[in-house]
């Protein structure tokens, strides 16, 4: 019962934040320069008289009072109607443009995040447990370096090394341009293209997760219940697995969720380095060409992604740690 109330509360908070985001999004894109009517007519290549322009403005709801526009906007958003793309892919619904690129980003960011979390946690546990050993010291140094390195710098270095000098991987894109590959050959080709951006994103965040997991484990190892567990004569492995790691994982969960916004930001720059046609590249295109409907869509997507990551973290946290549930 308590768990359900806790989760319901978290979902309510997330919905409140969502409303915040939608409102913010609405006003942010109302203050952007450029008249939507002028942009539309320009892209469709039609000359419109002043009257027709006025009619179009009324049709688009631009002459209605702001509150009314806002209600209409909320309605559109709930139906998943984000308008039409103006310059990136003129006339196509934003959702369509978006759904075309979304899977590519999801698979890239999803798999690399899972890989860096897994690697970071495993190394972090080892580092905290065998503090000061050779592997810990080298992981520590490596992590600090990776943490200090912007994602795009890492990407550029890998690009130089693997494509320019070692000629091992293609320098960018999602698949080969010839495009007549099918079945297994196609999958191999895509994986071949995705490997470097994937490696970049994985390495870029492994350091951060390692550092947090390690320090969180060190914190827990200083607790009295660990001393007690040892005094009871439990085996070290058991103490580590059952007592220490479980509790040390909690702060790491929060950090992973909080850093997700940065991971997405990193994905934008990495997609640029490897000209990987995902949502990050799409938002950059939209920004450069001033395609506001598409930009608004990608902005909404990034905010929602972080929001959902945070919600999942909160729920996981509540599930693992009964104290959190009891507190509210």
């Amino acid at each position, binding site marked *: 019962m308590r768990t359900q109330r806790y989760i319901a509360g978290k979902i309510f908070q997330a919905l409140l934040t969502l409303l915040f985001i939608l409102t913010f999004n609405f006003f942010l894109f109302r203050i952007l320069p450029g008249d939507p009517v002028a942009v539309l007519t320009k892209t469709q290549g039609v000359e419109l008289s002043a009257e027709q322009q006025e009619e179009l403005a009324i049709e688009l709801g631009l002459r209605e009072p702001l509150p009314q526009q806002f209600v209409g906007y909320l309605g559109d958003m709930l139906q998943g109607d984000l308008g039409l793309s103006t310059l990136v892919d003129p006339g196509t619904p934003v959702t369509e443009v978006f759904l075309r690129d979304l899977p590519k980003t999801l698979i890239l960011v999803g798999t690399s995040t899972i890989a860096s979390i897994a690697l970071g946690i495993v190394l972090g546990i080892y580092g905290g447990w065998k503090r000061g050993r050779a592997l810990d010291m080298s992981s520590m140094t490596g992590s600090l370096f990776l*943490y200090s390195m*912007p994602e795009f710098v890492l990407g550029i270095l890998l690009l130089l090394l693997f494509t320019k000098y070692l000629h091992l991987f293609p320098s960018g894109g999602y698949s080969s341009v010839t495009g007549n590959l099918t079945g297994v050959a196609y999958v191999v080709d895509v994986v071949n293209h995705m490997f470097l951006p994937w490696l970049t994103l994985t390495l870029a965040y492994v350091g951060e997760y390692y550092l947090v997991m390690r320090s969180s484990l060190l914190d827990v190892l200083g607790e009295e219940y660990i001393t007690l567990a040892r005094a009871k004569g439990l085996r070290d492995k058991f103490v580590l697995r059952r007592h220490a790691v479980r509790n040390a994982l909690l702060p790491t969960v929060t950090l992973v969720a909080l850093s997700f916004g940065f991971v997405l930001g990193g994905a934008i*720059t990495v997609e640029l380095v490897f000209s990987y046609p995902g949502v990050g590249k799409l938002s950059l295109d939209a920004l450069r060409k001033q395609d506001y409907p598409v930009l608004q869509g*990608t902005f909404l997507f990034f905010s929602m992604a*972080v929001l959902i990551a*945070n919600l999942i973290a909160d729920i996981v946290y509540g599930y693992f740690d009964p104290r959190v549930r009891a507190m509210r």
Partner: protein
Amino acid sequence: MKTERPPVSQPTEADAIPVAPPSGRSIRWKRRRIAATRFWHQFRRNKMGMVGLAILLFFGAMAIYSLFADPASLSKIAVTEESIAPCTFRDLPCAPSGNNILGTDADGRSVLSLVIHGSRMSLLVGLLASVIAMVIGSFVGIVAGYVGRATDSVLMRLSDFMLVIPWLALAAILATIIGQNVWVIIGIIGFTSWPGASRLIRAQTLSVKERLFIERSRALGGSAWHVISRHILPNVMPVIMANMILTVAIAILSESALSFLGLGDPLRVTWGTVIDEAFSRGATSIGAWWWLLAPSFCIVAVVLAFTLVGYALDEIINPRIRER
């Protein structure tokens, strides 16, 4: 309300040697000097922190040097056959050799001087943005923690909201609206980097608030402003400082990412804009590694240095970690 000073007995005729009592100010300064010395002794024992500090001093000197260095070396017009020797105009960008120990860019400008001039703006953006973030973060954190109740919930919701906003996308949009100007970029990074720090500062405020000397001060009639500025703030300050140093690192990373996306100030050279130009002019495909490596190295070194110093400060003010 002013700080109470114990009443000082006036020297009377009976006193053999009239000694002027130490003033409040001199006592405070003495206490601060002792605290600073003790702090320095602790910091000096932290090897990683000292390495970080050394790197920072090096780059600080570089930034100061750049103030006096000739800005003409950044202009494309100043490039001559002699300045790019032993290369010729045909084989630009020129690999490290002869006159240019770090090579040149595609216009023949020395990468070394680009990097030196870039240090000033990169550091300035990092420091100023971090100061803005800390002022906002401290204000929100302390007010939320001290006032509590509805104010606390509203401020924490606000910071939740700021945490969810995808900062890079927001910064990119704002830079497009307001203009690609270095001050705008400082503002954007500052205004989007405070939420994390505000939570830590709030937590620290909550723990300081429960201490007895706060109760004493309020019982004596101290106003909220007095309690916050004279008692809470000095006790929260160490957390603020450690966070500020760590935020500088993040702000420098943020600036470089924005510049790399082509949203930097087109009139100023930072390490980020050098990498952006190198990348967009095909340095990776022609293999001009020197053009990319030097600014990248600087970013990594400075961010690493700030992080090391930040961790060292954190360790000193959080004695729990130090014991182990």
